[in-house]
């Protein structure tokens, strides 16, 4: 084997005018991939519409969501003056769906977002450090896991007292454990890679390695898992409200409305199913949007 001077030959090779083209930047590529995904765009449109509707509720309807007319109870969909009918207390369903979106979206998004931040921090830390740190954190998580989620939420809410903030705290606590588990498993898979060893060799601290090398690589599974929890959180929040531990009636909230209309399912099934339809729509849109975002951010796509 002869030793050619690799440096000069390489320089000559690239100097010939065929320098490698710069690929499009990360953000450009991600945006292009996102805009080419119709499912994702559709989900984004549905979610934007839901959020806009609940924010603009006072402009879209003239009814008061809390006041009904005893003479106009359980009107069917399309009844004059009530596009989506009325509920068991004669309140306009459209109005209550619009206003209820506010509470439901807050109750669904906030706990999942908070739990994702906390759970990812705990999971990645224990996955990275292992040993006793992992033992302490993950066994504590297992304790939370041992209770059925709803039961735990009820217990926490009951001890904190009713109200939206306490409801959010309770839901946050129950979703930390599953997210931490996903984060830990993903971190453990990443942490044995040679690029983590390389980062250690460069003298970077643990927190720096987790922030710069680990998080970007465990983002996908956590993000997709967490987005699936949004719908679940809305329903669980509804259960709490139903038990008087969440939002108090007559404040409209989809989950509570679903429960309240249960009795009317034989008389007026379509109206009774409406809040459930909106919960489903929100949940599935979040899932699809999350899938699309993950795919478009994935450099390997």
């Amino acid at each position, binding site marked *: *084997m002869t030793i*050619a*001077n690799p*440096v000069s030959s390489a320089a000559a090779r690239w100097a010939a005018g065929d320098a*490698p083209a710069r690929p499009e930047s990360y953000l450009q590529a991600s945006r292009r991939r996102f805009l080419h995904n119709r499912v994702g765009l559709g989900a984004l449109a549905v979610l934007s519409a839901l959020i806009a509707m609940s924010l603009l509720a006072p402009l879209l309807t003239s009814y008061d969501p809390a006041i009904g007319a005893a003479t106009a109870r359980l009107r069917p969909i399309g009844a004059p003056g009530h596009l989506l009918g009325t509920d068991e207390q004669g309140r306009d369903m459209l109005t209550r769906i619009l206003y209820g979106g506010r509470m439901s979206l807050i109750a669904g998004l906030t706990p999942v977002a908070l739990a994702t931040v906390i759970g990812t921090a705990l999971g990645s830390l224990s996955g990275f450090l292992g040993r006793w740190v992992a033992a302490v954190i993950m066994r504590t998580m297992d304790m939370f896991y041992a209770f059925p989620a709803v039961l735990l939420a009820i217990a926490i809410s009951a001890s904190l007292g009713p109200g939206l903030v306490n409801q959010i705290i309770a839901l946050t606590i129950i979703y930390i454990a599953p997210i931490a588990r996903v984060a830990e498993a993903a971190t453990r898979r990443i942490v044995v*890679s040679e690029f983590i060893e390389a980062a250690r*060799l460069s003298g970077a601290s643990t927190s720096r390695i987790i922030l710069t*090398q680990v998080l970007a690589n465990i983002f996908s599974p956590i993000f997709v898992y967490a987005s699936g929890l949004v719908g679940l959180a809305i329903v669980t929040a509804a259960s709490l409200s139903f038990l008087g531990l969440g939002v108090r009636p007559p404040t409209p909230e989809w989950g509570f409305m679903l429960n309240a209309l249960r009795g009317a399912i034989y008389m007026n099934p379509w109206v009774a199913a409406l809040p459930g339809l909106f919960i489903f729509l929100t949940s599935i849109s979040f899932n699809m949007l999350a899938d699309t975002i993950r795919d478009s951010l994935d*450099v*390997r796509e």
Partner: protein
Amino acid sequence: MVTESIATEPQPPVPASPGRRNLLEVVKVSKRFPVRLGPLKRGYVSAVDSLSFDVVRGSTMGIVGESGCGKSTAARLIVGLLPIDEGDIIFDGANVRAPRQLHRPGPSEKALRRNMQMVFQDPHSSLNPRASVGEIISFPMKVHGFTKEQQRERTSWLLEQVGLHANHASYYPHQMSGGQRQRVNIARALALSPQLVVCDEAVSALDKSVQAQVLNLLKGLQEELGLTFIFISHDLNVVQFMSDSVCVMYLGQAVETCGADRLYENPLHPYTRALLASTPVLGGVGVASDVPPLEGELPSPLSPPSGCRFRTRCPFVMDICAEEAPPVRQPEPGHHVACHLYAEDSPAVAPRYASGLPVIEVSR
């Protein structure tokens, strides 16, 4: 190119002392890993046992051996990715034995460690798939407080040094070939201008033609930047091409250490002979083709054979091999071998390894 290299090369933080001949001295380094054998039973795998060798400044030390013989563990012990159980590592005259894990390095340790870097084996898992090549190469510089401008300039310079183009900085690892990724791997190892670069099976995952390119690149860089290499491979031909001296490892122990030429001309240890005999040689006969090829599997490192660890597969096995671990002898100057076949040091040898060790009388 040379003037440019001076312009962008930052000063090394630890002043080199060119007077010292050995950049690295590995002294009786051992590493054991605990393993669970049962619900309550614990055992130890002796991954590296009493490994010693010196690396001369600006030279290349090759380490060869079968897979599972502790080569990669040795590499990680040297650079400090794993804590050492016993022994010392003297780098540039300073003992850098790392009792602590690398993820909490002190400031002086951090400064020292940047002088030892590593080129990793797997071109896929050694680069962060979510980071661009530019981010990968500049990360060590960022950690050590280089300015943005310095990082950008030095990244372009490094990319050119390893035969890539500055534009490659905006590529992602998955957009590059295995050979290109390994060049990025090398560029990252050189980012902090280290003195010692440990290449752990750096070309094993590459095609033969790409291997040759990367080996030539490493040699060129060594010449240009005055690097010292530890080159780990299971491929004897690759090690012969790269190395000035070679250390042959078997089951965590060094069985033979000497200059590369002597090793291939006059292998002394039965294991080395068997290894050389099993190497395919193109258009000729192997150096030690009369030696029968190795039979059997590598014994379990959980319970290594008593005495000489190679005795279970050695064609020249004697009674003493099961009783005593063979001391390191120098049958010729600079040629260290741990085998009972060689009971005497050459008279010309300065007593370094021989001193303090019991002389065992063996009837051959």
